[in-house]
């Protein structure tokens, strides 16, 4: 049975924002680049505050950045 997990579109959103670097996103969100890498690779689920700040940087609603659903390969 497929397990549920938090997925994100950060890579896609960075691409759509002039290929924004992970370092630049980290600076605007106020976390380290390593944390952005971990979130992007679904190795870390951020707090609500950081999730909202990421959405704010991209100017999109939270559900456009993060989603929760089944994935086959967890």
């Amino acid at each position, binding site marked *: 049975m497929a397990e549920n997990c938090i997925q994100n579109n950060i890579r896609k959103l960075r691409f759509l924002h002039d290929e924004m670097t992970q370092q630049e996103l980290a600076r605007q969100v106020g*976390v*380290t*680049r*390593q*944390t952005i890498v971990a979130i992007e690779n679904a190795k870390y689920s951020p707090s609500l505050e950081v999730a909202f700040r990421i959405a704010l940087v991209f100017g999109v609603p939270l559900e456009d950045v993060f989603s929760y659903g089944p994935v086959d390969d967890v």
Partner: protein
Amino acid sequence: MSFKQKNTLVMLVNFSLLLLYVSFRVWQMVQTDTFINENVFSMFGVVVVWAIIGTIVAVILSHLVPLIIKAAKTGKDKVEIDDLEDERDKLIDMRGTQVTYTAASLGSLIAMLTFVFGQPPLVMFCLLLFFGVLAQVIGDATRLMLYRGRL
């Protein structure tokens, strides 16, 4: 590698060396039949001084060395210090501390058990010292593993 990761790595190396020192000294004392109060307490003094100075040197090293390398690479006089600590660092630190305390508690329990087997208090003291340092090593190793894995 973030500042916190570098700091944890240097601390891990420092406390691993300290653990080796404690193990070697105890083994040496047992071999040469000099397992006496004076030698054990002098070893305790070395461990305390080593832990304090080692921690200070670790922080300086993890701050300075990356800065010097960065300055040499970019050729700039003023380099930004990247010592930001975010929620993930704090969470990993908390879990590492939890593991350290658990290991230290188990170590203390084992050290107390030596009384049951009729060993002198000096053995208990040495075991407390050994497990104290070992707990720190296990905690730092856990932190590094959490940095690399899923949290």
